[in-house]
């Protein structure tokens, strides 16, 4: 009994420490200056422009990720094929890659002097220094968050449901659309939110691959970095908005689907 009590105390202490450490910087963003000052520095058009750009690019990136990632995740979850574990590893790799590595990799691949640079140029597309480049960078870093969650959700779907659907005459595609996706929707939503959050916060890959220009490639995180030296309150204000959006995202998914974001597991 006595041993158990000490152990409980240790667990509580660890959680308390973790909470203080994790909450303090987030709280400080709101407590460092008055709410009025925070709000008024959001009136700056360059701030609203950065936020708008961040939201737009993240929405487009996540849309691309969902359209391509959902069938890809379904394949990974339901079939086995040679090289599958290699494919899964490559899907997961951007999760652990430093953003600067992602940025330099994108430049080396799709930049004007990259291995596919000529192809990109011939297609009449310009990525570096354009909003399209920002979307490419966001898609690269955010895609694994969605694909992995969706894959896990599809993998835990009851096979009997899918088999029953097919027995009743629904084709594979129809079964996927009408049975598998609805059954996996909670996990997919969690992946979507994580993916969106990652896209919203992207900094390094965007700066290296797309550059930083107000209204074109300067997303909110880049604007925060820019303001750090000249306008600390403005940097705090933008940060506060990003905290609010991210928190709303987390809460929204939890309330709607009752799913814990990272594990995809129902409570």
């Amino acid at each position, binding site marked *: 009994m006595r041993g158990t*009590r000490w152990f*409980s*105390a*240790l667990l*509580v*202490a660890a959680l*308390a*420490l973790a909470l*203080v450490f994790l909450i303090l910087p987030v709280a400080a963003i709101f407590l460092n200056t008055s709410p009025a000052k925070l709000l008024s520095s959001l009136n700056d058009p360059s701030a609203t422009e950065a936020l708008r750009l961040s939201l737009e690019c993240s929405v487009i990136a996540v849309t691309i990720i969902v359209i391509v990632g959902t069938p890809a995740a379904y394949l990974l979850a339901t079939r086995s094929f040679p090289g599958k574990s290699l494919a899964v590893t490559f899907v997961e790799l951007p999760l652990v890659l430093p953003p600067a590595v992602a940025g330099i990799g994108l*430049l080396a691949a799709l*930049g*004007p*002097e990259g291995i596919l*640079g000529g192809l990109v140029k011939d297609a009449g597309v310009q990525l*570096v*220094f354009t909003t399209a480049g920002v979307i490419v960078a966001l898609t690269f870093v955010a895609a694994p968050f969605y694909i992995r969650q969706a894959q896990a959700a599809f993998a835990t779907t009851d096979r009997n449901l899918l088999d029953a659907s097919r027995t009743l005459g629904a084709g594979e595609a129809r079964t996927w659309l009408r049975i598998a996706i609805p059954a996996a929707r909670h996990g997919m939503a969690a992946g979507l939110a994580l993916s969106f959050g990652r896209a919203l916060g992207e900094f390094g890959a965007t*700066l*290296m691959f797309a*550059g*930083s*220009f*107000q209204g*074109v*490639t*300067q997303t909110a995180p880049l604007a925060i*970095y*820019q303001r*750090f*030296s*000249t306008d*600390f309150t403005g940097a705090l204000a933008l940060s506060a908005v990003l905290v609010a959006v991210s928190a709303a995202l987390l809460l929204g998914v939890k309330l709607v689907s009752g799913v814990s974001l990272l594990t995809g597991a129902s409570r």
Partner: protein
Amino acid sequence: MKLRVSVVALAVCAAIVSGCGSSSGSSTGSSGTPTLTVSAATSLTDAFTAYGKQFDEAKARFSFAGSDQLAAQIQQGARPDVYAAANTKLPDQLYSKGLIEKPVVFATNTLVLAVPASGSKIASLADLAKPGVKIAAGAPSVPVGTYTLKVLSGLPAAERKAIEGNIVSSEPDVGGVVGKVAEGAADAGFVYITDVKASGGKLKALTIPASLNPTAAYGVAVVKGAKHEQQAQSFVNGLLNGAGHQQLQKAGFGVPPQ
């Protein structure tokens, strides 16, 4: 029971926090040589790194970034031992706020137009005004960006407007500008002559007419409350007259007007 648990929790928290606090206060290496922290402008990277290897009074540890970012860190309470900026405005501001000792000019640099060493379609400043040219520049808050705007303000209004319209990225430090040109992402970029010299032949410098005053003066100072004030002062002295001075010259910096 519940109360006791939380008391223990608090005690453990306090112990861990205070433990961390005391261990981070020491910056003396195990060998006894102190570690000197130097916050320096990105453009000083090569010269300072070489000087740091020769500096034997302390182990020099560098933090290279845009001068404005480093100044903001100091304003937010960071305490390096030495602050070296790519202008005199930022050190003067920190000095007037009582955060650093009186700054001195220790080097000068020249703004140039960097283009890829071969196959560049840019041959002069005037070419920058052509439609479709992609120019990388420093953000207005970083010294290299300020110098760029100053140079451009000396041009005829129409030309200035056309060039400013061709700027596609405002990089947070000069390293970003160099990278964008070296990677072929941008056609040209405004950087310092020393950056072109350090690029290992990847870049070529197009000079900017002296009438546009492309000269940059670099200021350095010991930070107030520096942990190793004596070593910090000799680091600064070496920049003015010693190994640091030689490394600066080797990197292509100008000698300060004394």
